[in-house]
């Protein structure tokens, strides 16, 4: 399990990286290498050139406005976990980062790399889909912003062009009253999730947005269920029935186990955010 021979370059700017990618159709972008590394060793990826983007200053930049946090693509999960970059409120990003794989993976793995790879079982994909985040992509034709929910087209499939680079992710900050519930079911600690449930609830705006992740493709976004009203005794049960039927119509009904665990993670995420 050793990789094929390849060349290695480490560009200093985004522009340089994009021109190298444009000139080398067999090149692969190396960020944290936590997925690409094993794929190289297993020879599932056999690139002629690795383009290491981790030393590009622009890709570790953080921009913050009153409403939006923009994190450079090469910011590691560990930086987020440790609070070395700002959060969007309620320490949501740090909490989710802490549950990604193992610390060794978090020390090298990057938020941009994870999103570009678009593994359905990855945490950022589910969480940031629920938060309506945008990716900033840089390609030959310049920079563009793509909502994450349209960026991902299937399991490990995106609308990223071969010479596109994910530059940053733009995450809306949480409204003051908003709460986020996040739950995942893994066979063991650090393992890829079999089901991820995210609930974003804002009582002030009376909005509820749910995401079921690790569903084999792009996350399932459910944003047309009304949150139960305070004091409504069977509100939560009704809400859950709606969730279950949405999951079924999204194609999860055929497998009783899949339906059960995705319903369970969403229920637990809801329990975190809905008033008792």
């Amino acid at each position: 399990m050793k990789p094929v021979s390849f060349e290695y370059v480490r560009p200093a700017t985004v522009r340089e990286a994009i021109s190298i990618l444009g000139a080398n159709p067999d090149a692969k972008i190396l960020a944290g290498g936590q997925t690409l590394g094993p794929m190289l060793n297993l020879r599932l990826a056999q690139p002629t050139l690795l383009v290491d983007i981790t030393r590009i200053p622009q890709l570790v930049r953080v921009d913050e406005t009153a409403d939006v946090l923009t994190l450079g693509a090469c910011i590691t999960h560990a930086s987020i976990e440790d609070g070395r970059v700002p959060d969007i409120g309620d320490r949501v990003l740090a909490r989710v980062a802490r549950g990604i794989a193992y610390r060794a993976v978090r020390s090298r793995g990057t938020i941009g790399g994870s999103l570009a790879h678009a593994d359905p079982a990855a945490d950022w994909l589910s969480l940031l889909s629920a938060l309506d985040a945008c990716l900033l992509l840089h390609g030959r034709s310049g920079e563009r912003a793509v909502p994450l929910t349209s960026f991902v087209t299937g399991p490990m499939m995106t609308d990223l062009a071969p010479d596109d680079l994910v530059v940053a992710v733009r995450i809306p900050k949480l409204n003051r009253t908003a709460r986020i519930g996040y739950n995942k079911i893994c066979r063991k600690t650090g393992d890829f999730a079999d089901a991820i449930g995210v609930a974003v609830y804002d009582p002030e705006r009376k909005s509820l947005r749910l995401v079921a992740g690790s569903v084999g493709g792009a996350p399932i976004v459910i944003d047309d269920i009304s949150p139960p009203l305070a004091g409504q005794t069977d509100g939560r049960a009704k809400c859950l029935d709606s969730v279950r039927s949405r999951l079924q119509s999204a194609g999860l009904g055929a497998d009783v186990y899949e339906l059960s665990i995705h319903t369970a993670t969403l229920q637990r995420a809801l329990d975190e955010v809905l008033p008792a």
Partner: protein
Amino acid sequence: MNLKNKPLNVGIGASVPRKEDDRYLRGQGQFVGDVRLPRMHDVAFLRSPVAHGCIRRVIIPDDIRHVVFIAEDLVGVAPIRADTTLPGFKSSVQPILATGKVRYVGEPIALCIAPTRAEAEDHVQRIVVEIDELPAIHDMLEGRAAGSALVHDHWGDNLFLTTAIDANFAALTAAATHKVTREYRTARQVMSPLEGRGVVAQWDSRVGQLIVHSSTQQPHIVRSGLAECLGLDEGQIRVIAPDVGGGFGYKGVLLTEEVALGWAARKLGMPLRWLEDRRENLTAGADCREHHYIVTAYASADGRLLALDCEATVDSGAYSAYPFSACLEAGQIGSILPGLYDFPHYRCKTYSVATNKPPILPYRGVARTGVCFALEVTLDALARELGIEPAALRANSLVQPEQMPFDNIAKRHFDSGDYPEALRRAVTMIGLDKVRGRQRNGETDGRRIGVGLAMYSEQAGHGTSVYAAWGIPMVPGYEQCTARFTPDGALELRIGAHSHGQGLETTLSQVAHSILGVAHDRIKLVHGDTALTPYSTGTWGSRCMIMSGGAVAAACDELATRLKHVGAKLLQTAVADVRLQDGAVIGPRGRIGVADIARTWYRRPQDLPADADASGLEVTAGYKAKRDTGTFSYAAHAVVVAVTPGTGEVEILDYVVVEDGGVLVNPMIVDGQIIGGVAQGIGTALYEEMPYDTRGQPLASTFADYLLPGPTEMPNIRIDHMETPSPYTRFGQKGLGEGGAIAPPAAITNAINDALSTLGVELLVSPITPRRIVEAVEAAKPRSAKPRAAA
């Protein structure tokens, strides 16, 4: 650590910190992968991509033909044969590189050499193998059926061996008012030591020796096997097992890769290295454990086990592995299945089935883990049928202490123990009554609590008579130790077994210290090198504390006699008047330390009288237990689990082990063995599974697919020791290295079934995965309660 021991005792019974940990914990161990030799090249193997087929052609590009070797190149190399003399056994011939047919995915076809492993893998990629694929025997029951495709064409069927035991079964009477029948499957597993296999082979022209560094538990057996396959005298081969990163049975087998590298290193005059990678380990190397059972158990109305009737099948894989053979698992099932119980009627038939999978190998607990699962889960089902506590059925049926030593219904000779006491302690420790109370009240979080028990015994250090009856390539006889004082008065112990996690560098030092009084820092254990150590069948079967411990004691006893002779001369007194105590020979008028005696013997012989005994301070002594049928350590495991029926999540809330390993040489090391074994047992119970598709393709090729429990999956394990000495061993010690891995699948399954019994759910498979729980819960629901299927 056991604080009951007197603080000054550092001999037998003391929790002495492990001597070997200093280098391991500092990362200073030296493993095969650390061996660096001038001009050493790396090897990668081209392996079969199909499970079963005929090789039509191997096309090797001309520019690499000289660094690629296939079967036809291996002139003068014999295949591996691991036959038994059991009646009806069919012999398999395992080629070093596949010839004619391939019989499992991963079987080596070509050996490729390059300066680095990456380049060797480049060679592998460039070779084209044309194979006419044949139907794969991917399932042992299908392989057993008439008309199945054949792994070995000339056999006529796929049965390595069939065995049958019948002890008075037909006499079963109407007193057997209750019976249950259950069918079980245990997954194929893969042993996963931290370090995989690895070989560095070189031909040393000065000494005329093939020197093989191998990550093995059995250096002397590997030497014998290599000599047979390569046609060399054993003296022309030296096998060195340096630090070995975990064995568990996987390092107790002669590999085709070892033979191939030995041949090529000699042929090319160039050191060669092959380090197994994890994909090879998972898909082509370390298979174990896959069993199928149909068990019927009978009880009387007053809750006593009366009879067992069993048909067991083991998926043995394609070849009989050297030296333990293809039948070590199935062949032992008949004798293990009665467990710790005393009952009058018994019948058991077993089948060792050849399939298109890698050869099945012995893994910690060998056969017992599956057998314990089949028996103990059946007993819980029987208890439910009787409407009594599973603990009560066991208590009614266990062999009683006053029956010891006891010959059981399968002619196994239990040496000593108090099984009912172990059960009582486990029931008390786990708080059975409290758990039952909690179950009646229910859980506020919707989970269900269950409690499960399992008991087993572990035959250890069984020797000549047992293995002679098997007639496999290896029969253990007398275990030997060379003990010698060095001129500075330090002590060397040389053994042919190997220590790779068992802590023998510490425990054998404790044995020697107890006899000779030499301090631990002056005792060195030499092991893992056929050139430096006496012959041994190696480390397996939980035998080392019994056999190597006995041999160390025998050699040290003889050294003590010689020390007393020389010491008495130096003290100018009669040998009858001296004694050896606290590291000194003590006479009526003075004392002399053993180090001074050694220094005098080697470096100041002028001080010895003319009539001194000439035999010296170096001894090789052999040892066999008083009976070679083995010791039987035993344990009761009890576990409490919480199960979430809707998601299949299982949390282990409490886990207790009551273990009797006879006299414990080092209780701390024993605790470590138990905890490590239970971790592996939890893997068997809940995580580990190597699935195959219908074409015989292994479906888990990384640890992302083959799940092992990690530290966060481990509960805190509470251990209680009983110490019933074995009447047959030197210090009353019993072997217990494997036991921890035997009972967890049974205990955890019983606990899960207990938790889910009110839902009508019973799981009879390992591992019990969340998916299996959810599907079983769903299947047990009454029709009306099932959610509507999606449109």
